């Protein structure tokens, strides 16, 4: 059966269409979820896309975190539903305390869009299992507030538990601590990443096809989960 990947649209979401396209290219069915609707429509995984939810006013992701759909996503994520937050979605996950730390203003104070090299460091998550450990990938980064910060203890813990999923290499585009580009929760089902895998899924429009790995990873982990007779998180609701 085709896996259903939900893509949330908040007011001000911008890369929702791109995330849905990436899910389709990876072989999933993309299901659009609306911020005001708490029903997750039986999706097997959720992507919180990039953009400027609620204008990114106050703090990025701060207002989106209170959307009705987020209540359901927070519950489901705690139950194991794979959730990927990209850029603004990463910010929402931090604001919702599904991931530790915070994303703050880029150290150089500018919005920056460039093709960025990353090293994938954790391949045991729902969203990165298709990569090889240490694999170097090229995907676009574009943000104004992508500088990951957390206190030393949290950073050490993330490192110690192997929860830094990707690091910037050949240049840190925003000043993120320890070059962190993405992290995961303890269970490995919730992943936040600042650069945009959904913009690297087609030869015509992206700098590479490296982004596709995130979407094919979740399909594999879902397939594995059902083969093991486990419930995929989304089906618990």
């Amino acid at each position, binding site marked *: 059966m085709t896996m259903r990947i939900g893509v949330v649209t908040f007011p001000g979401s911008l890369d929702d269409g*791109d995330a849905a396209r990436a899910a389709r290219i990876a072989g999933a069915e993309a299901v659009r979820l609306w911020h005001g609707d708490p029903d997750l429509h039986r999706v097997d995984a959720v992507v919180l896309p990039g953009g400027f939810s609620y204008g990114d006013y106050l703090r990025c992701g701060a207002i989106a975190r209170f959307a009705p759909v987020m209540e359901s996503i927070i519950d489901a994520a705690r139950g194991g539903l794979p959730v990927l937050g990209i850029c603004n979605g990463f910010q929402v996950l931090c604001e919702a305390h599904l991931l530790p730390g915070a994303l703050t203003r880029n150290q150089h104070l500018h919005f920056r*869009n460039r093709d960025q090299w990353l090293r994938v460091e954790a391949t045991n998550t729902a969203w990165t299992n298709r990569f090889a450990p240490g694999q170097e990938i090229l995907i676009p980064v574009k943000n104004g507030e992508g500088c990951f910060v957390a206190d030393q203890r949290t950073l050490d813990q993330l490192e110690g538990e192997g929860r830094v999923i990707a690091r910037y290499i050949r240049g840190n585009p925003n000043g993120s601590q320890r070059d962190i580009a993405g992290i995961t929760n303890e269970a490995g089902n919730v992943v936040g990443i600042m650069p*945009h895998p959904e913009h690297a899924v087609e030869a015509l429009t992206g700098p590479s096809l490296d982004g596709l790995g995130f979407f094919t990873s979740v399909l594999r982990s879902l397939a594995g989960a059902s083969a093991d007779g486990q419930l995929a998180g989304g089906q618990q609701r």
Partner: protein
Amino acid sequence: MTTQPETATSGAEAARGVPNQPPAAAAPITKPSGFAATDVLVNEFEEGPDTVQRAAATPDELQPHADLGLKDDEYTRIREILGRRPTASELAMYSIMWSEHCSYKSSKVHLREFVKKVPKNTRMLAGIGENAGVVQISEKIAVTFKVESHNHPSYVEPYQGAATGVGGIVRDILAMGARPVAVMDPLRFGAADHPDTARVLPGVVAGIGGYGNCLGLPNIGGEIVFDPCYQGNPLVNALSIGVLPVERLQKKEATGVGNVVVLLGARTGRDGIGGVSVLASATFDEEAEQRRPSVQVGDPFMEKLLIESCLELYDAGLVSGIQDLGGAGLTCALTETAAAAGTGMRVWLERVPLREASMSPTEILASESQERMLLIVTPENLDKVLAVAEKWGVWATAIGEVTAASADGSPGRLLITWNDHVVVDVPPGSLADDGPVYERPMREPSDLILLQADRAETLPRPANAEELRETVLRMIASPNLCDKTWVTEQYDRYVLGNTVLAQPEDSGVLRIDEETGLGVALSVDGNGRFARLDPYEGAKLALAEAYRNVAVTGAEPIAVTDCLNFGSPEDPAVMWQFAQAVNGLADGCQQLGTPVTGGNVSFYNQTGAAAIHPTPVVGVMGIFDDVTRRIPMGFPAPAKAGGDLLYLLGE
């Protein structure tokens, strides 16, 4: 203090009353803070607003028409049209609509060249005179694109000026029924090392990025040119392109007697009141600096919601007519929609949702608050329209209705009341279409002969390898030729996932249709120094450059938009440059077979008596049947490049 509603609900609620009910009690008038061109009008009458009745009774009252930029004879004409003196609100409306910016009074006679010389072309669905030109690119799909200036506001407040420039052009595209899909930004600044450039450039770039990125529109190209002539008058032009199914093309006509006039989007505040007349028609002398009009602040988030609501309304077939609110606010939208249809309109101004309750009717009519659209909808559809607005959390308010043309068949009248006071009663066409038209005197600039005599051949040439090396290094280091990454990195070029080529390419290329591979290429170019030497050839060269940039990607160039940035039209030398440039562009377009589909004229780009170089900026659009066949400008990667041959084409 006004109360903030949770969503559009309260706005919609308030509007649900059909526009015939008695208005609410009058709000007290208090003195607005800060300077506005309308101050002088608002505070004149303690007992209430200036009404038509009052105007008829006090024909000799002195009116500040000159302060509002109206010439004596223009004021006399207004009195003739109305058969009385205008009310304060009417006077403000005429001053706005008859300004150079809105009426094209100095350029109109020249712009006719574009229409006269328009090549035979079956692709154009809407052309000059519409919010933006529309070109059909396949059986089902059309695109609309246009470039516009926001020069003066961007000098006063670079971030907000540039941001609202993007917002304004995007609403033009939206008003045609299109989903905006990309932006471009041709820019001109003063000397790169001048301290004021350090204020203006970063602000402008951040503003364009801030607004465009937040709207989710990829930036696919532009220009950055430095020249001291732009020091006190930078040029901030913004281009947007949108895509629509052919049958979704929208009209601005306020047709259908009894149809409801709905204001959609942000609430109205004291933004840039008088901005049109003061900002667009005056130069930056000291006085203007002192009278610094309040600046418009953009809210791209609101614009994003406005875009989504409008597209949903179009797709549901709920809109009979639509017009964006640009620099001239409600005044322009009300008069243009009514004038285009020949109908009349009845508007209850107190229904307009306000940010500050103390705004006078004149201020409401003149406000340049951003992120607003005017819709004409049938009464049956009103509730559905309000529901869509509520879904997206934008205000929607029925503020008026379309009324019949006069019994004798002549166009209807625009009648506006404010708490039962009749503040406006005018023929809308007199504002929108019948503004003054000037044939300004023209004279070739007296220094042109000398300038042209100073030829490049007289410059010393590098005589040896060492000198050549130095010349090359100097050129690479020059701000006009150096890498532009500092700017382009601040713009999102990936969003929407259809950007095929963007920086550092000479054209932006977009995929338009994922299924068929249909695509477009776009380039904007201009060269003020060429145009200063020869405005006719300079305009042609700008066209040729943009045309070439599009053609070399493999696209077929099919349509043109332009932004004509010039000094004061009251200067005969500037007027001569303008006429020459228009002629050059019109001739060039005729020769190439690409029509000018729309554009914008920006006059009064000068500091004191010194005009900028005449700067026609030309945008060319081309199409691809199969966008995967686009040709990037770089050589292929070394692995694949072995044995490729290089050719030099042309003379």
